[in-house]
C-alpha cells in the first residue's frame, strides 16, 4: 500500500529491545493505590464514594463530570483511605485531587459482564459502555474515547486509523500488547468500526521496526477489511497528524481535528481497552506500561494497575537510584521528568524511563544559535525552529504567530538535533503560554472597553433625553405664552402687547415675594424671643458657676466660666440683631 513521507524527522537510537526480552508481566499488588480524578483531557471526575467505604475491584469511585470527562474505577478491592490533593505526575509537579485506596489484598472483582451479542448492539449502546468504562486515549493525550468516536453527523467518518506506530524510543507497551493480544485488538477494532458505521478504510499504521507485532497481526487482518500498513521507522511518525499524512497523504487543517477530514485516529492500546469494556464489561483499571532504562535491572512491560506508584514499580525492577540520571514518565523525546517517584501511573502512562548517566547524560550548557538549520531539516511540520527561537527570545509575538508557532507539536526533534544544545521546545512552550496570556488579556480588555463604550453611550443617551425634555417644556411654555399673549392682544392695547405682558410678570413676581416676606413686627418679636432665651441661658450658666466653688477642679471651673462667657456673647449678638432690625425698619420708615 502506498505511503507518504513526512518532511523532517529524526532517527534516535531505538532502544526497544531491552524491554522486549520478557513477556508482559505483573507487579505484586501494591498496598496503596492513588487514583487522580483527572487523567484525561476535560473536566475532572467527581468522587462518588465516601471516605472509609469499602470498594470492590472495578467499582466506580468517581463519576464523569460533564460530557468531556470519564469516570474512575477502583483498580483493586479495598478501603477508601483518602480523598484529597496529592502530588501527581505532571510536569509542574502540582497537586491534584486524588482518591487513595488501601488494598485488602483480595483483589476481588465486582460482578461484571459484557454486552450480550454486542455485534448487534447500537452505536449509542456501545458508546455509553465505553464512556462508562472510563476509557480515554491511551497513547498520550487522554482524550475521552466515547467523545472521539462520536464526532456527530456533520462530520461523517470514512477512515478509521489505528495508531500502532509507537515511534518514541524505548517504549514497547503497544508492541508487546500486539504480540500477545493481537486477536483481542482486532476484535476491538471491529467494535470501533461498528460504532463508526463501518468506514470505508480501516488502517493500522505500524513502523517497520516491529516485525513480530506485524507478524502477529497479519494473519488476523486477512480478509477482514483492515489494512495493515507498515512504513519506515522515523520519529515522530506516531503523531496523529504525521500518521494520517503517512497513511493517506492528507493533512488535518491547522487547528482542526481528524474528524474534520472524515477520519478518526485511535491508539492501538485503546482498542484493547474497548474490547475488554464491551465484551467483558471491565472498566479501564490497568494498562501496559514499559519499565526501562539502564538504572533498572529489570526492563520489561507490566500490566500495571492505574494508581500504582512509580516507586512501587521501581522497587520491583531492581532500581538503582545512584545510577539514575533522571526519571521520565513517557519516552525520551516527549516524556516529562518526575521530581519524585511517589506519583501514580495513570491511564496515559505508557512508559517509565530510568536512564543511567551514560545513557542520557545531563544537558550540556546551551551555546549560541548559529542558525545552522538542522532543526528546520528535522521539523516534521515544516516550521523554522531557528527563527521561532530568535523571535521567542525577542518576545516578538506577531512574528511568532506568522511563523506558525501554534502548529508546533512539541515533538522535540529540533532540540534533539540542535548542535548548540538549545532547549528549543522549552522556549516554544514558554512563548505559547505568553501568547495565550496576551490573548486572554486582550479579550478581557476588549470586554472592558466595550463596557466603557456602552456606558458612555448610555450616559450620552440620557443627556440627550433630558435635553429633549427640556426643549419640549420650553416649547410648551412658549406656546402657552403665545396663546396668553394672543388672548391679551384680542383685548385693549394692540401695540404694547409685549411690554405690557412683561410688566405684568414682574408685578406678579414682586407680589409673590412680598407675600413670602415676614412683616417687620413679626421679625422684631422673633428677635425679642431669642434675647429672652439667651438671657435665661446666661442666668443658668452663672448659677452653675456660683454653685461650683471649691469642690471642682480648675479645669472644670474653667469650662463653666467659658460657658457663661459664651452665653453672654450669644445674648450680645441677639441684642445687636434686634437693634439692627429696629434701626433698619425705622430708617425705612424715615425714607
Amino acid at each position, binding site marked *: 500500500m502506498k505511503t507518504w513521507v513526512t518532511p523532517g524527522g529524526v532517527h534516535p537510537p531505538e532502544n526497544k529491545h531491552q524491554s522486549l526480552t520478557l513477556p508482559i508481566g505483573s507487579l505484586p499488588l501494591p498496598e496503596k493505590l492513588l487514583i487522580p480524578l483527572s487523567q484525561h483531557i476535560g473536566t475532572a471526575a467527581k468522587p462518588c464514594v465516601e471516605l472509609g467505604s469499602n470498594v470492590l475491584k472495578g467499582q466506580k469511585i468517581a463519576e464523569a463530570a460533564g460530557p468531556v470527562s470519564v469516570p474512575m474505577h477502583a483498580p483493586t478491592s479495598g478501603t477508601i483511605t483518602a480523598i484529597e490533593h496529592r502530588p501527581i505526575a505532571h510536569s509542574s509537579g502540582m497537586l491534584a485531587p486524588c482518591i487513595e485506596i488501601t488494598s485488602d489484598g483480595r483483589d476481588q472483582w465486582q460482578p461484571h459482564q459484557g454486552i450480550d451479542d454486542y455485534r448487534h448492539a447500537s452505536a449509542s449502546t456501545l458508546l455509553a459502555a465505553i464512556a462508562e468504562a472510563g476509557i480515554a486515549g491511551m497513547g498520550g493525550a487522554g482524550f475521552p474515547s466515547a467523545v472521539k468516536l462520536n464526532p456527530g453527523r456533520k462530520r461523517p467518518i470514512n477512515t478509521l486509523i489505528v495508531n500502532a506506530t509507537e515511534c518514541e524510543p524505548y517504549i514497547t507497551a503497544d508492541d508487546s500488547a500486539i504480540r500477545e493480544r493481537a486477536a483481542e485488538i482486532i476484535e476491538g477494532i471491529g467494535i470501533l468500526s461498528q460504532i463508526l458505521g463501518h468506514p470505508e478504510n480501516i488502517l493500522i499504521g505500524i513502523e517497520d521496526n516491529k516485525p513480530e507485532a506485524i507478524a502477529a497481526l497479519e494473519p488476523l487482518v486477512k480478509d477482514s477489511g483492515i489494512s495493515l500498513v507498515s512504513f519506515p521507522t522515523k520519529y515522530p511518525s506516531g503523531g496523529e497528524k504525521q500518521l494520517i499524512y503517512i497513511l493517506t497523504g492528507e493533512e488535518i487543517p491547522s487547528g482542526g481535528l481528524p474528524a474534520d477530514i472524515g477520519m478518526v485516529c485511535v491508539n492501538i492500546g485503546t482498542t484493547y481497552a474497548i474490547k475488554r469494556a464491551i465484551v467483558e464489561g471491565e472498566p479501564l483499571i490497568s494498562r501496559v506500561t514499559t519499565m526501562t532504562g539502564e538504572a533498572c535491572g529489570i526492563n520489561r512491560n507490566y500490566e500495571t494497575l492505574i494508581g500504582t506508584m512509580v516507586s512501587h514499580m521501581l522497587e520491583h525492577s531492581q532500581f538503582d537510584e545512584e545510577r539514575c540520571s533522571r526519571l521520565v514518565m513517557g519516552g525520551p523525546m516527549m516524556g516529562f521528568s518526575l521530581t519524585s517517584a511517589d506519583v501514580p501511573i495513570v491511564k496515559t502512562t505508557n512508559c517509565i524511563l530510568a536512564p543511567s548517566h551514560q545513557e542520557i547524560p545531563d544537558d*550540556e550548557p546551551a551555546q549560541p544559535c*548559529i542558525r*545552522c538549520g538542522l532543526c528546520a531539516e528535522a521539523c516534521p511540520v515544516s516550521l523554522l525552529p531557528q527563527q521561532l527561537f530568535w523571535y521567542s527570545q525577542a518576545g516578538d509575538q*506577531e512574528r511568532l504567530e506568522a511563523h506558525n508557532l501554534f502548529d508546533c507539536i512539541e515533538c522535540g526533534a529540533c532540540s534533539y538535533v540542535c548542535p548548540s544544545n538549545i532547549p528549543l521546545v522549552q522556549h516554544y512552550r514558554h512563548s505559547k503560554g505568553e501568547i495565550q496570556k496576551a490573548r486572554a488579556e486582550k479579550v478581557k480588555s476588549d470586554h472592558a472597553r466595550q463596557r466603557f463604550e456602552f456606558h458612555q453611550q448610555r450616559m450620552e443617551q440620557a443627556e440627550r433625553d433630558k435635553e429633549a425634555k427640556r426643549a419640549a417644556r420650553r416649547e410648551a411654555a412658549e406656546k402657552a405664552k403665545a396663546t396668553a399673549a394672543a388672548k391679551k392682544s384680542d383685548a385693549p392695547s394692540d401695540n404694547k402687547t409685549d411690554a405690557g405682558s412683561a410688566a405684568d410678570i414682574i408685578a406678579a413676581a414682586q407680589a409673590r415675594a412680598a407675600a413670602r416676606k415676614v412683616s417687620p413686627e413679626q421679625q422684631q418679636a422673633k428677635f425679642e424671643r431669642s434675647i429672652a432665651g439667651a438671657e435665661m441661658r446666661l442666668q443658668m450658666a452663672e448659677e452653675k458657676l456660683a454653685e461650683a466653688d471649691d469642690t471642682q477642679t480648675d479645669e472644670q471651673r474653667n469650662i463653666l466660666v467659658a460657658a457663661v462667657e459664651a452665653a453672654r456673647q450669644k445674648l450680645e449678638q441677639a441684642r445687636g440683631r434686634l437693634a439692627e432690625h429696629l434701626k433698619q425698619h425705622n430708617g425705612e420708615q424715615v425714607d
Partner: protein
Amino acid sequence: MAFKQITSPHAHASQNTGKVMQLVLWATLPGLLALTYHFGWGSLINVVLATATAVAAEALIVQMRGRSVSFYLRDYSAAVTAVLLGLALPPLAPWWVVVVGTLSSIVVAKHLYGGLGYNPFNPAMVGYVVLLISFPIQMTSWVTPLALLPEGVSHPGLFESLSIVFAGYSPADGVTGPTPLDSFKFSDGLLVEQIYSQNPLFSQAGIAGVGWEWVNLGFLAGGLILLGSKIFTWHGPVAMLAAIAIMSALFWDGGSSNSPGSPLMHLFSGASMMGAFFILTDPVSSAVSNRGRLIYGALIGVLVYIIRAWGNYPDAVAFAVLLANFAAPFIDNYTLPRTYGHIDRRRATEKGQEDKSK
C-alpha cells in the same frame, strides 16, 4: 527519592557546534593542500597566523565581555573564520595584512555585533574586504603557480617564506604574478581563443587556469564532504554555481574579445568553489529556509558574475556575499516554508491570525 526536573526531549544527538566547526576545518584541507602545492608555503603561514590572531582576539574579547573563555573557544568558530580568511588572502602577504584582516573579522564583524550567532555579515569576508579596500597592492599580488615558475626559480622555502612575511624581504622575480581572472580581465582586444593559446596560465591548464583549477577542485571535494555530512544543504552552493554557470553561458559572447570568459573558467577559477561551499554556507549570515537559500545562493552567483565581468575587481565573492548578507533578512521574510495543515506559505511580516477557511 528526588530527581532532576529536566525539560523534554531527554535524548540528544551527539552533534555539537564545536564538532561541526572542526569538521569544516578538516574539510578545508584539500583546498589548503592544493594551495600549498601550487603556490608554496604562503597560504599555510596565512592560516596559522590568522588562527593564532583570531584565537587570541576571541579570548580577549570574550574575557572583556565577562564570559567563559574556555567555553567560547571550544566552539571553534573563531578558528573557522581565521582559516577561511587565511585561505582567501594572497600567499606571502605581509604579516600585518593578515593580522589586520583577522582583527577586523573577529573584533569588528563578529564581537561588536554580539558574537557568534549574531553577526549579520560573514566575518571572514568583512576582513577580506577591509583589506582589499585598504591595501589593494598587497591584496592583488598573487604567487605564480609552481608549474609556471621561470627556469631556475622556485617557490621560497619555509624559512624564506617566513622572512618575506615577517621581515619584509622581497620574493625573487617571477614568484608573483597575475591570477587567471586578472589576466582575463586585463586582456582586452584578444579573443578568448587567443588568450587561451598565448597565456601559459591557460595554455598549460586543464580547465580553468594552472593551479587554480586544482585549488577549486580541492574546495569542491571538501564541500562535498560537508554536504555528505549534512553540515549544510545543497541549496545555497548549487544555486550559486548554477547562477554563475548560467550567467557565464549567457554572456559568453562566442568567445569574442569582449567575452568575460567561459562557464568552466568562472566555476573553477578564483574563489568560486571556496565561496560556494565554505563562505555562503555560513549559516549565521545567510538566509534560513531552503527556498531562501536558493535565492540567496543565486543572488551571490549573479553578483559574482556581474562584478567579475563588468566591475573593477577581478574576483567578487567577498563583495557578492556581503551584499547578499544585507538581503538575507529580507529574503527570509518571503520564503517561509508551508507548514503542515496550512493551505499556503505565509509571510513573516503577516499581522494577526491567518484566514484558515478553505
